[in-house]
């Protein structure tokens, strides 16, 4: 038992497994309270079965706690990955992991109990304690990542480095971690202001108010930047896993650093007198950050193709394509980054360009659908990228690797594509005749996400069964570190 607990709470892969399992469990339970399952009466059944205490006026507060508890587990997963991929002092590694593990588990368990099972205030205190511990873990992580320590200089010239040898990729990790900690304050301060966590609002519901308070702006900025930073961090993590290097790495890393800093300045500016030009600053920041990610995509795809056709003298296009697609777990994360542009970035730009014809005409609730849709898709895309990496991490091979990888990619993209069409449907179909299209899109979303959760559940069950085996896979993973599994 002690060995298993040690695996689950001390090893990198065990910690990641626990966090994924916690998210899967929470998604499975609380996903039944909304969407199509609510219409089918599942919500009422679950509420009665689990004796939840749901007050109508507190719905927004509950959802905010739900989002935070899931997000904290995602942040914990990214932190485990960073602390396993990058060099740092053992003290920091242990401290960061301990704080963030206790933090996110407290946040998830006590936050959800407080939100959905009556207001037992000590639980709220423990929820806040959890969030605070995660914040302190973040501060320690920033210190641990300090890139100007000679121990961490990059000796290999094929990676982005300064003349003195400072590892520019580490600077990117550092900048992202630092700005994440600062940006967390933009949520923490208004979170405290709104007091008990329930007298609050969803940002999409106030988007059209011409006058917003500083606290409201702060929350709007916070929710946007935190998701963006989680996305940037996973890009850096995937880059490290796939051993991103060479000229593209040297161009991408400064772009990501610049983009991250400017993006943050813009978002922080939303809550300051800079608000009128904040969006412009955000665009200026987002562009280099996305260009940096594009370089990672080019590097990875090029590498996959070159490796795949190495034995062929003059490969044709078809052979190159087959080479690119031969390993869904290595192709998937960067493909999802590309796909994200079709479902979020391009949609955002399109909407911004046609603002007068769309948002000035559509009712607020149509705009709300678009806003929540793209936010959820972006979050879920990040989740699929993590799961693809996780598939490689747990050593999936052969057909299982193919099935797992392609299931994640295809099922999620079907669902995300359907969400995107759903968001934009008013552009091409009137309200009165939309129902058949809505039904088809809903089916695609539910089928895609439902099947994806089934795949995840199968992996989780396998891992659970494995834990009962004396010499299960977990025994091999106890000492695995992600840094030694970087793709060469």
């Amino acid at each position, binding site marked *: 038992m002690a060995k298993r607990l040690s695996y689950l709470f001390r090893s990198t892969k065990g910690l990641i497994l626990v966090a994924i399992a916690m998210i899967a469990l929470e998604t499975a339970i609380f996903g039944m309270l909304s969407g199509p399952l*609510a*219409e089918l009466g599942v919500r009422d059944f679950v509420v009665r079965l689990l004796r939840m205490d749901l007050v*109508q*006026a507190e*719905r*927004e507060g509950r959802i905010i706690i739900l989002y935070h508890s899931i997000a904290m587990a995602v942040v914990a997963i990214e932190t485990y990955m960073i602390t396993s991929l990058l060099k740092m002092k053992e003290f920091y590694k242990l401290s960061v992991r301990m704080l963030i593990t206790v933090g996110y588990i407290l946040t998830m368990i006590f936050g959800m109990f407080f939100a959905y099972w009556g207001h037992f205030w000590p639980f709220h205190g423990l929820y806040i304690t959890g969030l605070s511990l995660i914040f302190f873990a973040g501060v320690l992580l920033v210190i641990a990542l300090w890139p100007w320590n000679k121990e961490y200089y990059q000796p290999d010239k094929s990676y982005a480095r300064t003349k003195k040898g400072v590892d520019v990729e580490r600077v990117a990790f550092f900048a992202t971690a630092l700005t994440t900690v600062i940006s967390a304050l933009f949520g923490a301060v208004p979170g405290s202001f709104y007091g008990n966590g329930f*007298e609050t609002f969803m940002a999409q519901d106030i988007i*059209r108010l*011409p*006058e917003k308070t500083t606290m409201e702006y702060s929350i709007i900025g916070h929710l946007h930047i935190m998701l963006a930073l989680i996305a940037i961090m996973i890009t850096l993590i995937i880059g490290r896993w796939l051993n991103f290097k060479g000229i593209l790495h040297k161009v991408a890393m400064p772009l990501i650093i610049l983009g991250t800093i400017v993006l943050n300045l813009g978002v922080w500016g939303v809550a300051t007198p800079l608000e*009128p030009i904040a969006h412009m600053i955000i665009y200026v920041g987002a562009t280099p950050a996305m260009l940096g990610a594009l370089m990672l995509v080019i590097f990875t795809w090029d590498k996959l193709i070159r490796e795949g056709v190495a034995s062929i003298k003059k490969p044709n296009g078809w052979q190159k394509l087959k080479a690119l697609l031969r390993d869904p777990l290595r192709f998937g994360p960067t493909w999802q980054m590309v796909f994200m542009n079709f479902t979020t970035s391009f949609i955002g730009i399109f909407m911004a360009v046609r603002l007068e014809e769309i948002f*000035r*005409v*559509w*009712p*607020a*609730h149509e705009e709300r659908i678009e806003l929540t849709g793209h936010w959820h898709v972006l979050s879920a895309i990040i989740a699929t990228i993590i799961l693809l990496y996780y598939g490689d991490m747990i050593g999936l091979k052969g057909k299982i690797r193919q099935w797992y990888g392609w299931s994640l990619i295809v099922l999620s993209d079907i669902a995300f594509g359907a969400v995107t069409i759903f968001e934009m449907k008013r552009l091409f179909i*009137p*309200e*009165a*005749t*939309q*129902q*058949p*299209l*809505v*039904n*088809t*899109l809903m*089916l*695609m979303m539910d089928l895609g996400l439902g099947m994806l959760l089934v795949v995840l559940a199968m992996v989780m069950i396998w891992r659970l069964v494995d834990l009962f085996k004396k010499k299960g896979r977990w025994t091999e993973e106890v000492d695995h570190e992600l840094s030694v599994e970087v793709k060469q």
Partner: protein
Amino acid sequence: MKHIFLTLLLLIGILASCAPVDLNAPLPTYDTGVDPNAWATVPAGQFLYGQFSDPASIDYDYQMMVTDVTVSLYVDFLNAALADGTLKVDGNQIVGFYPGDVFHGVKHEVRIDPGDYIIVPTDDPASRFTFDGTIFTVVPGYENHPMTNVSWFGAWDYCGYNGYRLPTEMEWEKAARGSTDDRPFPWGDEIARDNANFYASRDPFEDMSSFGSRTTPVGFYNGNAYDGYVTLDSASPYGLYDIAGNVWQWTGNVYEGQHYRYMRGGSKDTYDMDLRVWVHNNATPTYYSPGVGFRCLRNP
């Protein structure tokens, strides 16, 4: 074989999503027994306003229509107002004069100058009335359904023409919630399918495989049974019906720096959460939809 099956499944899905929708599909007709010409008095006094139940007060009595304005009532208005020149035909729409709003030049604010604005479209197949170029007629069966596909200007004009006005958001909410407690729905703390017409509420007018949700006759949710479909009496504390669900209801506020007009009550097309009394929606005043109607207010 597997590929053929998947392709077929995909094709069926695509074809199903493109299936034509019969907007004039037959509908059941019921007399709910609720008079659309009735008014309910809302007395002056305190009440709890908004999601967090802030204490508020309205220091005058007022009367609200017990139901939404019906298609029948609105068609009568259209015919009368067209005949006396209040409204006129302009292409494929009926327009009426609006004196305009003060423009404050706030970011995203659109100027509403004095002029003619759309009241209703005349050629929208989703409308529950027809227009032959001279006379408006109700589509049979929809006489006692709420008027829809009417712009804010159309709602504003109807109320003004009859000596009434649109309720403000506060007046609407007090009428919906009453003054005794912080209930989220006009009838109480929880919502069931038989309380109101909302998305997938399975009322006899709905077919989610085809046209989706349709309006129910005004006052439908009054505790009566209709061909075996039993409703719950869902009047507000002051006796208003359909104040939550069925159609969004335009309200009268013109907020400084905004061209948007606000709606309350949720509709046949929204989830139950949008039927909570404090939830609002908004749109440009020329917007019209099969899910938006209104009711009027008058001073006693």
